[in-house]
């Protein structure tokens, strides 16, 4: 009897969970439709969260919205930061830079306070939209597609309650082109781009740091390494400061907040290989056509993203995406070392 009732309780829980998920999805749908009504401009943003979510979910989601609701590109105004206009090409007819309207210090303070994910529309977001609308003299009828819609839409997938198929049905992935922006350093003809920062998936521990150092050394023995450490402190991830013995170039201290991501994108797009913490630009570079080696030691927070990335990158013809679980190397008692063996390059492979 107790088994019987437990079974029904479990069923009821499942149905209730599913119902809650549906209600959330329907609400998002209603918000979307309301925002897309009429012929007025639509602000997509302001995007103030992580680069990874922007590339892997937000932009593909916008691309799907535009296609599914037949919205002309010229209605959409992408509102983001760091000069990411090229990421929105084919999605939004116009790009507005947040740092043209908000001082980076104000933006950085928000990130430092830990308000990274935009699950709700914050006062900061509302303020950004208001200032941008005033500055651009946008009509009062301008609608806002806030990132919280996307966060709420895909949250059940991240928690394992929604299917990968659901995400695939509500996103459209496409290649991203490199922006035309000036680069503050002289780049070699051939180089590896590296962006290693501390994250939950790559915590700052002595063993991890040692591995990363030897990894970068191994790379720099083969070709010059360009470090994309910004030193701007615009988010909650600090870059690893790795002194490598080989040819090392860095953009640290040379970037402006309003173009920092554009410059990083341009540098990454010209690299032979991109190696970085699994997150942020590592989700972008395969779509730029650059073989990517994302590194992590703890995949606990990455399962869903890795699952999705592996599926969609293959489908859109992105460059190889080869995640490295550094804990495998560490726990095998091994280390990366300088190669002298002839090994085919990633591009060749």
């Amino acid at each position, binding site marked *: 009897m107790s088994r019987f009732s437990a079974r029904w309780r479990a069923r009821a829980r499942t149905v209730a969970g599913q119902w809650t998920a549906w209600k959330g999805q329907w609400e998002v749908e209603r918000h979307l439709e309301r925002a897309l009504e009429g012929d007025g401009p639509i602000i997509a943003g302001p995007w103030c969260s992580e680069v990874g979510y922007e590339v892997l979910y937000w932009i593909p989601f916008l691309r799907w919205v535009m296609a599914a609701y037949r919205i002309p590109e010229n209605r959409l105004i992408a509102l983001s930061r760091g000069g990411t206009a090229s990421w929105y090409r084919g999605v939004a007819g116009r790009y507005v830079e947040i740092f043209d309207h908000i001082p980076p210090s104000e933006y950085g303070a928000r990130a430092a306070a830990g308000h990274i994910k935009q699950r709700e529309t914050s006062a900061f977001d509302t303020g950004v939209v208001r200032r941008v609308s005033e500055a651009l003299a946008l009509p009062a009828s301008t609608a806002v597609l806030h990132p919280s819609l996307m966060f709420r839409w895909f949250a059940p997938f991240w928690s394992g309650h929604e299917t990968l198929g659901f995400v695939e049905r509500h996103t459209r992935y496409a290649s991203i082109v490199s922006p035309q922006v000036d680069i503050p350093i002289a780049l070699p003809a051939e180089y590896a781009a590296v962006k290693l920062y501390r994250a939950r998936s790559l915590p700052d521990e002595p063993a991890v740091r040692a591995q990363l150092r030897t990894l970068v050394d191994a790379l720099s023995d083969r070709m010059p390494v360009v470090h994309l450490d910004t030193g701007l402190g615009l988010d909650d991830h600090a870059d690893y400061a790795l002194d490598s013995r080989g040819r090392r170039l860095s953009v640290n201290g040379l970037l402006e907040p309003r173009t920092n991501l554009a410059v990083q994108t341009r540098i990454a797009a010209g690299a032979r290989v991109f190696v970085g913490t699994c997150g942020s630009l590592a989700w972008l570079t395969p779509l730029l056509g650059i073989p990517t*080696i994302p590194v992590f030691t703890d*995949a606990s927070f990455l399962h869903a993203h890795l699952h999705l990335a592996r599926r969609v990158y293959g489908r859109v013809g992105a460059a190889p995406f*080869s995640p490295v679980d550094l804990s495998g190397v560490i726990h095998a008692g091994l280390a990366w*070392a300088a*190669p002298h063996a002839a090994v085919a390059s990633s591009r060749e492979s």
Partner: protein
Amino acid sequence: MALPNIWRAAMNLAAARIRRVERRGRNVTRLVQQAAKKVNRVAELAIHAPRHVRARWHRSQAAAVRMRNRYRRLDDHVLTPFRSERRIKRTLWRASSGNRALIVGPWTSEVGYEALYWIPFLTWATQRYGVRPERVIALSRGGTRDWYAGIAGRYVEIFDLVDPPAFAEQAAARRDRGDQKQVEASDFDRELIERASSHLGVRGAAVWHPGLMYQLFRPFWYGDRSLEFFLRHTDFRYAPLDSGVAGVGPLPVDYVAVKFYTGPALPDTPANRALLRDLVARLARRSAVVVLDTAWSIDEHRDYAFDDIPGVTTVRPSLDPRTNLGVQTRVIAGARQFVGTCGGLAWLAPFLRVPTIAIYESDRYLTAHLYAARHAYRRYDAARFSTLNITAIRGIGAALAKAS
């Protein structure tokens, strides 16, 4: 009597008339204004009619699309899976009712699916349908009795019923038919069930065929069912193994178990062979290595052999088809680490409390399994599971070297 003030009366009358006229005028003006407003409104409606019609059309179209999408979602996520799930669960329930013996199997497909899906599925199903182990007969190959501990009271070894070459022939035929997975029961499966029944002297046994599991989880592998659904239909509590490895020569006290085999995840190429060889040699310089290679193959996978490397021991001479998987399992359970191809026994090792490093070159067929396994390991507090992608190693152009 006072005379009436004619002049004043006339003025009053005139004023009253004027007021009346004014009132009428105002009324007329109001009416005209109202009419004008109406005309304006109608004109405005007429002017904006196409836009309004378009908007209304868009709204109704959006509503229709929304309803269609909702229905599709309902059909995709609820109705179709529910029908399939109900059919599978009804089959499970029917077979579990009564006191008949219950054959689970025959398992003739890959080791990885057996370890990662079939056994956890059976653990869940036997609990869910209240089937006691005394009733359950596991039918598998390679001496995997230990894997079914707590699920099945009896175990029938398929290689006691058919010769390994005949089994390999049937497996190859199944592959040729494009049906490597046991989604449906084949004639060979039915024959094995009959032979197992007569081997044990059991009549009228019910059967839970692996196809039930494959049909239930296939939508998950294709991305049409959620992780939560998968975890709801599995239980990864593996029974602990008794210590000791029977039938194998003396093993080192402290060793790393290694098993590399070819497959889509780790194709047999000169570059891969060299890299794996280098890796095993480096492992062997740090500690004893026991390689779990076999001298035969009953499926499309071939084991890499490394026993010519100093410090590497092979259990090959001790393995025979009837017991090889059981022996390999116990060797892994006694190891301090397992390193092998991502697949097969690598999925099992973390549940044996052995830290595992799974190596692959291509994750094309691994994504759903990695997703499922990593969540299961975390949920069931299994040993550490790390992956090593050799494409990345090659991409960086680095070789693995001994840590300083």
